[in-house]
Structures are given as structure tokens and as C-alpha cells.
């Protein structure tokens, strides 16, 4: 819709390109500017389980480079992916310098199995929803502010201290306040706080088993084998608005660098880490809460952790959907983390599942676990624990809060106690509940908002390298954003990012962008570009047939302010275009391809036009602009080869312009594909123009075309004078008047068909709509005959080829 609107509004082409390349990098970008960057995300993506993530991430970046080359520069950049270009002055280093412009997207090579929109995304919030969200966010902010400003009742606090409050509070057994407490001392594993919840070892395609009990931190604990996870029976299901805390004792084996400690989710990258986890990653602790990692997630890297000894780990979360609200404690002490991602804006649950996976320990499906690790005493709280609580769980009361001597408390201890006390006040509890209620509403509102893929630059660019032989993991020298020496210099004033690249490309001095663009419009209108190889302006490409014309058009295009409508208007109003396309036999001999433009252009209508033309001429076309894609007629069962089912729309969806046809790359719409529409697996700027028997079958028998013929037959039959009806039909389909001979021929055919239908009325059934409210057989026969005439015209050269 953005693209269609941009064309309709005649957005200057340099702006059109800049927004699509780098709308997100413009100062204070608008939603439309960010949306435009979806251009670089619409490559194929892979959700096959087990693919190597980096291999595909690299493919996506490569696709952006290849598209840049084909669409804007007319250069075959991809030839330089594995080695220096064989023909053009583009080195492999040049290729990876371009690559580095597009390499800074926090995306996943493997996308989620539940069709979650591949990140990064932009929320396409409707206005009313946005106002609801604004309202909620305001309320949340206000509640947070008032909570922050709340002062405690100092007198009551002092009284609490005097009454030995700290001792009472901080020596109690907090575990009894948990919603999940798994001591792991005997089998079966049970939740002491909810005995109906029990734990069992699970592994894909393997029967459930009891865990192995071994000596634990406290009495017994369980031993992990790295493949099976301890499923705790459904405890730990929290959405992102809910505060929670999860802790355990763990004894990690010596040489383990990667493996999941606990998680709530299903598999690992399969669902792009939906849920939360605490894991070892590259030998450090990693916390994650994700809707769809890595972008729509909170990811924090913590410290390394001691091995072969019991350590206490706890993750606490305050329900804020921010990295600030997600804390990691190691042996009771909060530890600093490095934030790798902090934009969680959709829920961490699986919205479509009746039963959410709960907390699991020590391994996960198709992921790495902690083989040889031991765990003990797992606790799950439905609140964000205070640091003093965590400390008590980990190291007990070793800091003297149980003292009766209040003077012995240090000021920092007293400060901690003050915040602890504040937390216990009923007013505070009420506020927390209120905030959580608002956040829950905010969460459910946000979760239903449509998303769209866009570009977003990482805070710290990812280092790019020359990839030897194009291999994703064969790093050569590091490279940085730059453009080839053979092209105009990349000005020092430009930022070294996609925005700078767009500005470099659309600079009036750039020799390629404008030429490539006007050439492609020339190709659209004449069937062939002035440079026939519209995708290759390099040494292997064709030379322009009219170089001065190309230069002039490009210069004029830039001077016009990159005005596409003016460009097209000029082309189609030109004397050259408006020449007759009827050749003399001499001209046909001299210049069969019409390279010299001594006659008007001719060429078969494109796949989309063939269909749209039939719909338009038959008045079936629904001219609505924009909106979601539609599913027109398609033979049943085609999607079966990859497990899908195509359900055609009814009503308007059948008759929209082909531009709106739902496109499934793995099984593209057959009607369009048959007429040379590309599969859209990769950028394509030029189509083959073929003629095949399958095209004949589409035009003869595809219901879109028979239905259009029927509508035209009905209309034709309404004319008192048949030849007028034929003429009207012919004009609508071909754009010219039929000759006398043509009318005579078609009239004769009408008589023939009518005669045939009269003799055997069954012959016409397939041509007529079943709900036709005409009972007179002779009339029906006439309508059917007219329908066949319309179909004949629709199949003729006059309709299919623009002349």
C-alpha cells in the first residue's frame, strides 16, 4: 500500500528510493518513512528447523546487495560475492563493503515456526488502538510516578524497626510464599506449594522418565543429561506484564560453554525463543525474554559463573517489558549485565495455544542443555523479589539484619530496609496491582496489532568481513561501508550508513541511478530498454541503442525533480511512441526488433495485464485501491505439496487487480506464473516474454477468463444489432475497432455457435452462470454464442498484444 500510494502521489523518485533504503535513518522518521524500509526485508526467508542461522542471515544481507545492484545501479554486484567481478570493476571487497551497509539488522536467519513476523518490525497501529494505547501508557506512567513519589510513613517505619520487623521478615522462610517450590529431594518431583503440579523428565520422541536423584545443595538434587528437560508441570507461565522471579541452585560442569539452565518456551530458535530463559551462552550467563528474538526481545549478557560448585541464580522481573526491569542475581548479589536488545513490544506467550509450555529445566528441544549439571531447590514467585529476599534465599541472613541493635545497622543497610519496608506497605501493593492491571491491558491491546517487517539499525554495527568464496563462515579481512572506486566518490559529508548510500545513489552526479531508472521505464513502455540488458549496465550488458537519448532522458529526469509521472507522460505522448506499430515488410526485414524505433511498440501484455484487461473489459474488475492481498480463483490442491490449503475468496476478492493477488513464493499463482510473472524469489527487473500451450489453456478455460467472457457475452447479447455488440466487445478488449472483415468473421462464428448450441443445448452449460434468470432456450443459446465470441476475441492477438 505504501508503494502504491507513493506512485499515485507521484513521490519524487529520489525520495522514493531514499525512504525505502533508509527511511528509518532520517531525522525523526515518520511511520511512513520507516514503513518504506520494508523494501529491504521482502526477500525469501527460511523457517526450516535445523538450518544454520548465520548461513541464512548472510543470504538475506546478500539479497539486499543483489537487489541494490539490479534495481538501482544496473550492476551485477552478485558476481563479486565469491571473487572479484570477471568483467566489471567491482572487487570482492567492494561487494562486502556494500554488504556492510545492510549487515546491521537484528534479524534471525531462521524465522519462527508460528509465522510470527520476522523481526525487526513496525507496529501498524490503527488510530483508535493507538489512542487507547496512549491512554494506557499515560496511566501507567502516572501510576509509576506516583509510586516513585510515595514516601513512607517514617514513624511507622521506625516503629517497624523497633519492633524487630527486619528480623521477622528476613528470617522467615520466603519459600513458602512461592507459587512453585521444588525441593527435588525425592521422587516424584512435586511442587510443595501446589502438589497437583509434578515434574518429569521429557525429551522429544522419548517416553517421559523420572529424573536421577543425586546429592544436592540441600539433601538431594537432580542430575541433568543435557537432552531431557525437567518439565515442572505448567508452573512459570507469565506474560510480559506480570512480575515474576525464578531461582535455583545449580552446579555447572567444568567445560560447558553453552546450554540452557531454565526456560519457558518451546524449543530454542524454532519459535525464535518465544518465552524467557536463563542460559549459558559463550561461557556467560544470558537472560532473555522474547516475543521473537533477537529484536522483539530483551537480551542481557551477564558474567561468567563458577563451575563444579553450587551457585545460586535468580532472575527477577518487574513486568515493565524493559531490560531495566529484568535483573540477574548470582549468589544473592545483583550482577551487572550488558544489554543486547531492549525492545520487547509483543507478548512472550503463544497466543494461539490452549496450553502454554511452562518452566523447564536443564535442556530444551533442539537446543543445547547442561549435560552433567545438577540442580536443586527451584523456586518460582509471582512477584519481583526484593534484593534482600534474594539475598536471603541465596546466602541466608548473613548481614546482620536480625540484630536487635538498630544502631548497628549501617546507613546503606537502613536504606535497603526502608525500600523493603516500602514494598510491604499496603498502599504500595495496591499501586503494584494497579500498574500490573494497566500493563496487562496494554499487552493484550498491543498483541493484536498487525506488524510489518522494516529495517532497524543495531546500536553497535556488526563487523562485516569479506566472506571467502561467499561462504558465510569463511571470514577474510574486515570491511566497512564504502562504495567501489570505479563509481563516484562517497562524499565525506555523507554518513556511512544506508542513508548515506541512498544519498550517494540519488546524487545528481551519479551516472547510473537515473539512467537505469529511465531505461526501465522505457522498457516498461516499449517492451525493451534503450539498454536492452536493463539489469546489466556493465561490460557484459548491451550498449544503448540511442545513447544520447538515454543521457538526455536521465538528465531531464533529474532536473524534473525525479518526476516519474512526467517521465511517463513524456514517453507516451512522444511522437515516437505514438507512431503506428504497423510495419512495412521492408522495415520488418531491416529491423524486426524495432531497435531503431521507426514504428510504434508492440508486445504481449504482462501476466497481470492479461488478467486485469479481461476483468476490466468485462466490468468485473473491482477497482478498490490498497488493502490486504486477495485470493482469486486457483485450481484446488495446488498447495498440497507443501501442506497448505488455498481457499479462494468469494465476491470482490476474485476480481481485484492482479497486483493484489496473494503470492506464495513456493507455489506462485499459476495463472500469472504461466504468463511469465517471476516467482519473486529474488529481484527481477526484466521478464521473458513467451508463448506456450499452457497460456492458451489459461485463456481458454481458467474460470477468471470464462467468467469474463460470459459477462461480455451477456452485454453483447443485449445489443439489438449483433455486429454492434461484437464491435463493442472487440473495442473493450483490444483498444481498437474491429475491421469489417473481423466483424463478418465473428458474426459468422456466432451463427455457427448458435446453431451448434441449438442442436445440442447441453454444449452451452459450461459457458453460462448457473444462476442466470433466463429460461428461454433460444435466448440462452444466443447468450452462450455471444460468450464464445467474447472468449474468441479475448484469445486473439488483438487482445493479448499491445500494438
Amino acid at each position, binding site marked *: 500500500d505504501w508503494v502504491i500510494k507513493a506512485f499515485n502521489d507521484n513521490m519524487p523518485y529520489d525520495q522514493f528510493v531514499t525512504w525505502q533504503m533508509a527511511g528509518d535513518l532520517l531525522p525523526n522518521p515518520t511511520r511512513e518513512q520507516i514503513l518504506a524500509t520494508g523494501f529491504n526485508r521482502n526477500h525469501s526467508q527460511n523457517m526450516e528447523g535445523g538450518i544454520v542461522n548465520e548461513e541464512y542471515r548472510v543470504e538475506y544481507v546478500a539479497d539486499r546487495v543483489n537487489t541494490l545492484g539490479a534495481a538501482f545501479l544496473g550492476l551485477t554486484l552478485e558476481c563479486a560475492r565469491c571473487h572479484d567481478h570477471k568483467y566489471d570493476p567491482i572487487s570482492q571487497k567492494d561487494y562486502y563493503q556494500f554488504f556492510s551497509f545492510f549487515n546491521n539488522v537484528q534479524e534471525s536467519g531462521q524465522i519462527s515456526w508460528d509465522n510470527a513476523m520476522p523481526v525487526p518490525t513496525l507496529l501498524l497501529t490503527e488510530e483508535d488502538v493507538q489512542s487507547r494505547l496512549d491512554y494506557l501508557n499515560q496511566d501507567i506512567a502516572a501510576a509509576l510516578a506516583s509510586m516513585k513519589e510515595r514516601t513512607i510513613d517514617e514513624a511507622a517505619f521506625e516503629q517497624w524497626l523497633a519492633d524487630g520487623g527486619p528480623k521477622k521478615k528476613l528470617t522467615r522462610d520466603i519459600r513458602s510464599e512461592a507459587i512453585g517450590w521444588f525441593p527435588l529431594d525425592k521422587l516424584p518431583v512435586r511442587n510443595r506449594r501446589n502438589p497437583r503440579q509434578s515434574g518429569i523428565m521429557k525429551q522429544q520422541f522419548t517416553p517421559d522418565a523420572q529424573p536421577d536423584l543425586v546429592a544436592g545443595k540441600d539433601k538431594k538434587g537432580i542430575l541433568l543429561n543435557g*537432552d531431557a528437560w525437567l518439565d515442572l508441570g505448567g508452573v512459570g507461565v507469565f506474560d510480559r506484564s506480570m512480575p515474576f522471579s525464578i531461582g535455583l541452585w545449580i552446579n555447572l560442569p567444568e567445560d560447558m560453554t553453552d546450554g540452557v539452565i531454565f526456560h519457558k518456551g518451546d524449543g530454542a530458535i524454532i519459535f525464535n525463543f518465544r518465552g524467557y530463559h536463563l542460559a549459558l551462552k559463550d561461557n556467560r550467563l544470558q537472560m532473555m525474554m522474547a516475543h521473537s528474538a533477537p529484536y522483539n526481545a530483551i537480551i542481557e549478557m551477564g558474567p561468567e559463573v563458577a563451575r563444579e560448585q553450587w551457585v545460586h541464580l535468580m532472575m527477577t522481573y518487574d513486568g515493565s517489558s524493559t531490560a531495566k526491569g529484568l535483573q540477574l542475581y548470582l549468589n544473592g548479589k545483583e550482577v551487572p549485565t550488558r544489554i543486547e536488545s531492549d525492545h520487547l513490544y509483543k507478548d512472550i506467550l503463544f497466543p494461539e495455544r490452549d496450553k502454554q509450555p511452562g518452566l523447564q529445566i536443564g535442556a530444551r528441544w533442539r537446543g543445547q542443555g547442561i549435560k552433567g549439571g545438577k540442580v536443586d531447590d527451584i523456586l518460582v514467585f509471582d512477584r519481583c523479589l526484593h534484593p534482600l529476599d534474594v539475598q536471603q534465599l541465596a546466602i541466608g541472613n548473613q548481614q546482620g539484619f536480625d540484630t536487635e541493635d538498630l544502631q548497628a545497622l549501617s546507613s546503606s543497610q537502613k536504606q535497603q530496609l526502608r525500600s523493603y519496608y516500602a514494598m510491604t506497605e499496603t498502599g504500595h501493593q495496591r499501586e503494584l496491582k494497579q500498574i500490573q492491571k494497566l500493563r496487562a491491558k496494554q499487552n493484550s491491546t498491543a498483541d493484536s496489532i498487525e506488524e510489518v517487517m522494516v529495517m532497524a539499525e543495531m546500536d553497535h554495527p556488526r563487523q562485516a568481513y569479506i566472506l571467502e568464496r561467499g561462504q558465510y563462515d569463511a571470514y577474510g579481512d574486515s570491511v566497512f561501508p564504502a562504495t567501489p572506486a570505479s563509481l563516484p566518490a562517497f562524499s565525506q559529508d555523507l554518513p556511512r550508513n544506508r542513508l548515506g548510500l541512498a544519498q550517494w545513489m540519488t546524487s545528481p552526479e551519479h551516472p547510473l541511478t537515473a539512467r537505469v531508472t529511465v531505461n526501465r521505464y522505457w522498457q516498461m513502455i516499449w517492451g525493451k530498454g534503450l539498454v536492452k540488458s536493463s539489469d546489466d549496465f556493465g561490460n557484459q550488458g548491451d550498449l544503448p541503442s540511442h545513447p544520447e537519448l538515454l543521457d538526455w532522458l536521465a538528465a531531464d529526469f533529474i532536473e524534473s525533480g525525479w518526476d516519474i509521472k512526467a517521465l511517463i507522460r513524456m514517453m507516451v505522448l512522444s511522437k515516437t511512441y505514438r507512431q503506428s506499430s504497423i510495419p512495412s515488410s521492408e522495415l520488418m526485414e531491416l529491423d524486426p526488433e524495432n531497435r531503431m524505433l521507426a514504428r510504434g511498440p508492440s508486445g504481449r501484455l504482462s501476466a497481470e495485464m492479461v488478467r486485469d484487461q479481461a476483468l476490466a473489459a468485462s466490468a468485473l474488475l473491482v477497482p478498490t485501491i490498497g488493502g490486504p492481498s486477495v485470493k482469486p480463483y486457483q485450481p484446488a490442491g495446488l498447495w498440497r505439496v507443501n501442506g497448505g490449503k488455498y481457499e479462494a475468496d468469494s465476491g470482490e476478492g476474485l476480481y481485484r487487480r492482479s497486483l493484489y493477488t496473494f503470492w506464495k513464493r513456493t507455489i506462485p499463482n499459476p495463472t500469472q506464473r504461466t504468463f511469465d510473472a517471476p516467482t519473486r524469489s529474488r529481484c527481477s527487473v526484466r521478464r521473458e516474454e513467451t508463448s506456450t500451450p499452457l497460456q492458451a489453456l489459461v485463456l481458454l478455460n481458467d474460470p477468471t477468463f470464462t467468467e469474463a467472457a460470459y459477462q461480455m457475452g451477456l452485454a453483447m447479447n443485449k445489443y439489438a444489432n449483433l455486429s454492434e455488440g461484437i464491435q463493442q466487445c472487440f473495442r473493450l478488449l483490444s483498444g481498437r475497432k474491429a475491421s469489417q472483415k473481423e466483424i463478418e468473421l465473428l458474426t459468422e462464428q456466432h451463427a455457427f455457435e448458435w446453431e451448434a448450441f441449438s442442436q445440442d443445448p447441453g454444449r452451452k452449460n459450461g459457458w453460462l452462470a448457473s444462476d442466470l434468470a433466463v429460461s428461454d432456450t433460444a435466448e440462452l443459446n444466443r447468450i452462450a454464442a455471444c460468450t464464445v465470441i467474447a472468449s474468441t476475441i479475448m484469445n486473439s492477438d488483438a487482445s493479448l498484444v499491445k500494438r
Partner: protein
Amino acid sequence: MQEELFNIQRQISRRRFLTRTSMGLGALAFGGLTGSTLMGQHPGSDPMGKILADRGLHFPPKAKRVVYLFQSGGPSQIDLFDYKPVLEKMHGKDLPDSVRKGQRLTGMSAGQSSIPVAASYFSFKQYGQSGAWVSELMPYTAEIVDELCFIKSMHTEAINHDPAITFFQSGNQQAGRPSIGAWVSYGLGSDNENLPTFIVLVSKNAGGQPLYARLWGNGFLPSRHQGVQFRSGKDPVLFLNNPDGYDAADRKSMLGYLKQLNALQQDTYLDPEIENRMAQYEMAYRMQASVPEVTDMKDEPDWVYDMYGPDSRDPGTYAANCLLARRLLERDVKFVQLYHQGWDQHNFLPGAIRNQCKKTDQATAALVKDLKQRGMLEDTLVIWGGEFGRTVYSQGKLTKDNYGRDHHPRCFTMWMAGAGVKAGMSFGETDDFSYNIIKDPVHVHDFQATLMHLMGVDHERLTFKHQGRRYRLTDVHGHVVKDILT
């Protein structure tokens, strides 16, 4: 045919002809490369060379047609053909690092804490004169081993289905290149003007890893080279059927009028494309008769159905597709490709593979026998294989009677039979674990080069220029496996 070509040539330039002509004229794809001009004015005066080049050939072809039985998902070589007695001793022990050599695993088993060797659950015996090892799963294939040439040393680059199958069928892991059948159609054209050159049949009695239209797509080649999927049911080819009640005679008259209408247009515009398009309509019309004729298999005698097995009476099954393939080959369809999904046995392999073999083994063997009986095997190439093999180690838990196997690109088994291929041969060897190749590796590009060679095409010379580069099926690789050729 020659006459027709001359007539067309008179009207249009050669270049235009090459980019626009239709089925049956694919031979001309070579015109620009061999330095020959359109109608056989080849350098030198070797009459054989001239005839070959006229037909788009670089060598005398051994295979006039190919039937490629694609076993999608990656059949386990270890449980079918690549017999490894040593594994019984190693069963349950971790695969030695000296065998794995740090090679990458898929994301499905890379995280596994151990990778225990799983010996095949099935027993193996030697069969035929050639003494080929075949497991108990394939009793019918066991009967025909003396017709087959096993390649035990196939290897590929991809470790996941989508890239691997795309690589096998198009020579590149990423979507966008033409499929093998499309290249064959482009290079060699058709021997049957009433049926498509490249026909695809997908088993309905299988499910599993997805297939994609690009596997039989034309990529950047003209769309006429795309494979045409024949489906079971009343509309075997999309939009083949005329509107209800409108019969072939009606259609013929209608096309007669259309031809006259187009002729009037032609008188004005002198465009040979108009005649070409009309020729396409005529072929479509012929297809409307020839497709039902070939897909309606009622005329096959019972003994034929018995040979292919009971499924063969149920249209759309693998067995029925094998029989249909034979009928298509009889009519000189150049490239027939079957797809049977379901070999992706990550878990519960013993049960699943048994089931899979039941659905395919008998009909596969029957097709080879049937072609042989009809004297067609000598110029028909039959190919059986998937996109990769499976690991010797168990994915998931290994138990007494259950295991799974992950994808294994480093070695797997395929077989070829018929035209130009040595019968009763086993080529290439793997190590004791069927993990690495120790002798005569055959890369996917080598396989593709060999296939093209058997059809009379030099894989290095059949190219198509697209976006600034001349592409070929085998990219910049591929060697014909001469040792398996007769």
C-alpha cells in the same frame, strides 16, 4: 519440421527466433554458443556433428528420456543399501571424533549431548550376479540389482532440505535457477508435440518435508521450459478441460475461427509471433486429447497392475505415478520426475522407513522391469535418490528398537539404471560408519553433469545468459562420472 523452421526463419531474425520460439524448437538454444547459425551451417563438414547440433546435442545421446524418482526427505543409506557390519559392535557408543572430524551438524542435533552410533535395525543380504547388498526393506529392488548402478559415494553441500533439494534440482542452494528438467527442455526440446517435455508427478500418498514449484521451475529460462505437474483427478493439467458440455469438436471449430481472426491481424502486422501463438493453441488442443489419453490407465492389463502393486490402481499414489511415468516415457516425454515425500526420519525411523519402502519399493522395481520388457531401458535413464543421506548416529534417544537419524550430506546412496549406465555396478565407497567417503566421491554437480552427458549434452556448454552472467546447471563445477558409463 525442417520445412516449418525455414519458413519461420524467413520471416524473423534469428535472435528473435531464439528468444521467442516454443516447444519443439529448443534445439536452437545452442545456436548462439556453438558458433553455428540457425539451420546447420556448422563449421566443418562432419555430418554427424551437424545432425547432433541440430538437435541441440554435443554427443551422441545414450538416453532419449529420463525418469527421475526423487525420494524427498533423504532416505537412510545405512538402512537400505550401504551395509556396515562394523556398526553392530559400535552400537550405542558415541561416534568417534576421528570420524566426525568436527563437521557441522544441523541445528536439530547439534545441541545433543551425545551422538550414539545406531546400527541398522534391518538385516542385509547380497543379491544377484552383482552381489549388491540390499536390506530386507527393499525385497523388490533386491530382485533387479543387476540392472542398477549404485552410487554409494554421493555427497552434497547443504544439510537442510530446502537448500539441499533446491541444490539437487537446480545446482544452487538458493531459489531462482532453472531445474534440471527445465535445462533439458531448453537444451533438447521435445520429441512429442502433444505432451509437455518435462512432466512432474507428486505422490499423494506421502507427506513430509514441503516441495516447491521451483523444483520443477524454469528459473530465468523462458516459462515454456517449466515442468508441468500432472495431477490425479479430472483436470490432470491445469485448465485442461473445456467448459462443461463444450467438446473437442466445438473447441476445434472455435480455434478455427480464432485462427482466421489472427490471420487477419497477421495480414496487417506481419508479426510471426501471431503464427507462433496460434501454433501454441493447436498444441494446447492436442494436449486436451493426449493428456487424458495417457493419464487414463484403464487400458492397462491386470498383470501390469499386479506388477506395480495394488496402489497402482489408485491414481496419484507413487505406484500409479510409476505406471503413468512409463506411459509418458512410451510417448517420448523427455523428462519425467516423480516426487515421493516422507523419507525424513528424524525419529521412529525403523517403523517409518518400513512403511515408506512398502509404498515405493515394488513400483520402483516394476518400472525398471517394465521398461526392460518393453525394450525401453536401453535408451531410458532411471534415477532413484534423495537430497542427502542420514547420520549414522541416532538423533534423539537410542533404544533397543528405536532410533532416528539426522540429515547427512557427506555421503549417501543413489542408483541409476538403463541408458548408458553400467548395470550391476556399485560405485564409490564410504568408511565403516557410512559417514565419510573413502573412494570415488560423486558430488551433486557431478551427478548433474553425468545426467546431461547421458542425454548428449555437455554441461559446460549448455548455458543461458541472465543478469550479466552465463549460467549453467552445474555452476562452475561438475565432472562426468565416466567410470559408470557403458
